């Protein structure tokens, strides 16, 4: 039996080819009969429905629908690019000059693709029912792993004397840029971060972290892979964790206030 025929049986409108199969196959016929039985009517109680309706009508105000996905993508990409350009302008491009063309292409290309994928995923996350091209749960970790592999593959591992001091210096440069970028990202995303603020927070934090990482890649002439992993990719990791924590707090606060208010409304509308 083909999928199409099976699908037709599932939804109860088998085509002639599926009907033919049903005549020949006893099991499928039985299953189709079982699925074709009228479902016992189990309706919600009228009282409960009236309560829900009253609660919904009580503070019914017009709302502005979410902007189209294309607008959100452009807004997020514009914020990313603007913050990146501002950071590079302020810090200089010594790192870009130190890299070979291959290193520059691979690392900047990787960062650009990661940012694009994250933006696409974020827009899907804030648009319920829009489907997901990338699994939102795994994406931040996946991007960080891929970035680490790219850095380890493109830059040489060296031993340097002042590893921690230099790393800390870059981390301190990159993190404030990213933390400041989280604010405009969150302003775009906050109305839509309704399904899983924790995941949205982690992805938004990572996106902001990628701004700092990109600026450091262009600015820092240190080509040691350990340094880049610790302090450049480290900015992205740190901001992703910050975003996750922020999403968690937002989720808790939102649930506490909105749920409490909603419940109160529902209870107070009981006859």
């Amino acid at each position, binding site marked *: 039996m083909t999928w199409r025929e099976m699908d037709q049986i599932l939804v109860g409108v088998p085509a002639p080819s599926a009907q033919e199969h049903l005549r020949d196959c006893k099991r499928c016929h039985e299953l189709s009969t079982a699925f074709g039985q009228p479902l016992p009517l189990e309706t919600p109680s009228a009282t409960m429905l009236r309560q829900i309706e009253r609660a919904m009508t009580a503070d019914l105000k017009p709302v502005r629908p979410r902007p189209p996905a294309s607008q959100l993508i452009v807004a997020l990409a514009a914020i990313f690019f603007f913050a990146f350009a501002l950071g590079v302008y302020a810090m200089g491009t010594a790192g870009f000059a130190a890299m070979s063309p291959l290193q520059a292409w691979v690392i900047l290309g990787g960062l650009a693709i990661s940012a694009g994928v994250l933006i696409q995923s974020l827009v899907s996350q804030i648009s319920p029912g829009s489907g997901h091209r990338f699994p939102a749960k795994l994406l931040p970790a996946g991007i960080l792993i891929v970035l680490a592999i790219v850095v380890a593959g493109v830059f040489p591992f060296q031993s340097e004397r002042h590893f921690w001091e230099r790393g800390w210096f870059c981390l301190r440069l990159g993190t404030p840029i990213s933390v400041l970028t989280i604010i405009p990202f969150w302003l775009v995303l906050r109305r839509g971060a309704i399904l899983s603020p924790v995941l949205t927070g982690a992805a938004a934090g990572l996106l902001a972290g990628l701004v700092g990482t990109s600026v450091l890649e262009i600015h820092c002439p240190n080509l040691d892979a350990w340094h880049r992993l610790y302090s450049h990719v480290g900015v992205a990791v740190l901001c992703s964790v910050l975003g996750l924590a922020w999403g968690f707090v937002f989720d808790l606060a939102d649930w506490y206030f*909105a*749920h409490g208010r909603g419940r109160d409304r529902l209870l107070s509308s009981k006859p």
Partner: protein
Amino acid sequence: MVEGCLQQNPIEREASADLDRWMQRYQEADPEAPTALVTALSPALLRFFRSQVASREHADDLLQETWLRIHRVRHSYRPGEPVLPWIYTIARRVRVDGYRRRLRIKTHEADMEVLPKRPVAAEGRGWLPAFDTLVAALPESQREVVTMLKVGGLSLEEVARSTASTIGAVKQKAHRAYAKLRKLLEAHEEFRGGAQ
């Protein structure tokens, strides 16, 4: 009027378009819109929750919670987009949140000496088990897909959108569910044959 239209399966496309219009009117604060949407969608949503949780009371709670959440996030619906995946995505989220909350509560509660009885499974036509009894034997993800297709009347694409997966993954789950149900029916018949 959309009232009662979702109690039939498959959902008529015109009814779905009606829902889109009601959703738009809901966003514009038309006071008739909540009633129309709640009346049209609640039976299917209740069935969706009932197929996932045993108790009617819990399913009722989840239904109320879903409508409160829908009311709160109604701005996130984009006019012109299909309304059913939007609704079911929120309903799924409410179910997951409800499950986590109950899990948290459970860990703080002592076990009861007598467990509450599960609702008696509905009898089907003749010797065949009822739909609820059949799908109850499926793993959760397959049960969800079959319930959305059969009870919610969603298309494959809509189920994929609601469950944040691909059409291929939905087809695979439905295919596995179908194969498992066939086996179950076979075992059911053998059991009945043996009993007679």
